[in-house]
C-alpha cells in the first residue's frame, strides 16, 4: 500500500464568497468507477454510488446504471447533468427507433446513438459512457464511448476516475469464457479495489446482469465489499 499524498491539491482556505459554501459553487461530478464485462449469454455491469460537488458527497447512493431499453443499459461517468441529459435523449431516440423497427433494438445502435451525440457536442459535454446489453443478433456486448466521442467494442471495459487504478487488476484477472457468477465476482472485486484507492468513488457497489431472460440487479453494501488488507 503506497503512501500517496496529493501535495498539490489547491484547497482555498478563504473563498471570496464565504456566505455560500464552496461545494455549492462546484460542478456536480460523478468522479466514478464504472465497468462492464461480456460473458456468453449476456453482460455484467457495475458502478460505485458516489456523486460529488467538489469535496462534498451530494449523493452517496447514486444509481449510475441507467436503463436505455429493456436489455440495454448505460454506465455514466463524468458530469452528472451531461450524462443524464444524453441518456434521456438516447432513451427517447432508441424507443422511437424500436417502435419503427417493431423489434428490440441492437446494442450497437444504442452505442452509436451515444457516440453521435458525444462526438457532435464533444466541446460542451464531459461524459464518459459505457453501453452494455444483450440482443438476439450478437448476444452480450460492451461498447465504450469515452470523452471525445470515439466508440469501440471490448470484452471488458472500465471507466471513470477510479478506472486508472484497476487497469492492472483487470488485465491480469479477466479471462475470456467466464460464467455470469465469475463476472459478478470479478466486477465486485474490481469496484472494491477502485473505491478503496479513488477518493471520488465510494459508497455501495451496484451491479446488474443482463441476459436474454432479463435483468438481475444487485447491491453490495460497504461492509460486505471484499477487503484487501495489506498492512
Amino acid at each position, binding site marked *: *500500500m*503506497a*503512501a*500517496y*499524498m*496529493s*501535495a*498539490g*491539491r*489547491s484547497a482555498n482556505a478563504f473563498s471570496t464568497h464565504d456566505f455560500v459554501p464552496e461545494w455549492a459553487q462546484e460542478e456536480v461530478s460523478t468522479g466514478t468507477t464504472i465497468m462492464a464485462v461480456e460473458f456468453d449469454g449476456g453482460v455484467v455491469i457495475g458502478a460505485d454510488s458516489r456523486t460529488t460537488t467538489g469535496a462534498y458527497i451530494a449523493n452517496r447512493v447514486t444509481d449510475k446504471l441507467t436503463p436505455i431499453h429493456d436489455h440495454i443499459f448505460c454506465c455514466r461517468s463524468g458530469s452528472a447533468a451531461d450524462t443524464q441529459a444524453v441518456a434521456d435523449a438516447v432513451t427517447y431516440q432508441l424507443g422511437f427507433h424500436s417502435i419503427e423497427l417493431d423489434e428490440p433494438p441492437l446494442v450497437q445502435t444504442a452505442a452509436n446513438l451515444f457516440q453521435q451525440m458525444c462526438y457532435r457536442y464533444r466541446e460542451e459535454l464531459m461524459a464518459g459512457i459505457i453501453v452494455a446489453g444483450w440482443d438476439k443478433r450478437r448476444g452480450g456486448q460492451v461498447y465504450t464511448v469515452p470523452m471525445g466521442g470515439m466508440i469501440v467494442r471490448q470484452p471488458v471495459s472500465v471507466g471513470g476516475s477510479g478506472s*486508472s*487504478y*484497476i*487497469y*492492472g*487488476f*483487470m*488485465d*491480469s*484477472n*479477466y*479471462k*475470456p469464457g467466464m460464467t455470469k457468477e465469475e463476472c459478478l465476482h470479478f466486477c465486485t*472485486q*474490481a469496484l472494491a*479495489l*477502485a473505491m*478503496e*484507492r479513488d477518493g471520488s468513488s465510494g459508497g455501495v457497489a451496484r451491479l446488474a446482469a443482463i441476459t436474454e431472460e432479463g435483468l438481475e440487479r444487485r447491491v453490495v453494501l460497504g461492509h460486505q465489499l471484499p477487503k*484487501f488488507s*495489506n*498492512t
Partner: protein
Amino acid sequence: MDISKRPQTFERQKGFSNTVRTEQVSTRPATYYLSGAKIKRFKMLEESSEPGWLSEEVKTGTTIIAIEFDGGVVLGSDSRVSAGETVVNRVMNKLSLLHDKIYCALSGSAADAQTIAEMVNYQLDVHSIEVGEDPQVRSAATLVKNISYKYKEELSAHLIVAGWDKRGGGQVYVTLNGLLSRQPFAVGGSGSAYVYGFVDAEYRKAMSKEDCQQFVVNTLSLAMSRDGSSGGVAYLVTIDEKGAEEKCILGNELPTFYDQ
C-alpha cells in the same frame, strides 16, 4: 566498498519527471535550482528552429516497485526515459546503488533523482566508515528523506529505498515529498496508478523470494502495457544477506495478458 559498483553518471541524461500528478507540478513555484529544466525552457524561447524534443523537459514517466520478503527485498523498474514524445533512452536502469546491500528506485525528475542518489551514496560511504560496519537501510532512507524534505519546493523526485541489513532484515521505505515511512511494499511513478488495484489484490503477507520476484515482474509488465511513459525492459534487483543480484528481463520475455 567496491569501486566498480559505483553508480554511473550519465552526462547525457537531461532529466525525467514524474507525470503522475500534473497538479503538483503546475502549482510548484518556478525556481528549479537542482534540475536542468529551467535552463532548457529559456533556451526554447530564443531558438525555435530545433526539434521539439530538444527543448522539452526529459521525463521518465516510470514504474518502480519494491517489496520485502523474509530475508531481503526485491526492487523492480522499467527502462524508459522520454522527452516529449521521443524516447531518449529505452534501456535506462532506474535502480541505483546506494551501498552494497541498499538500492534505491528513481522516479520523478531524472536529474533530481540521480543527484540525490549520488549525494546519499557519498554520505553513506562516509557514515559506514565512521561506524565501522554496513549502514542500516533506515539510515539510507533518512538521508534521502532529509534531502527530499529540505529541497521539497525545488525537487520533484521520489525515491523508494530498499535493502537488507542485519538488524532489521529486508526493509522498504518511501520518501515521497519528504516523508519517511516503512511499508511491506511500495509502488511509484506514473505507471503505478494503473496497478494499485492489482497490487492491492495480489499482495499477500509472507511471500517467498521467488513469489516476490514474480509479483514484481507481473506488476511491471501490467504497468508498462498501460502507461505510455513506461516501457522497454524490466530491471530487477534482489537483495539478501549474501548480496545484491541484478537481473534484466527483455520485453519479449515479460508475461503477457489476455489482450496481447
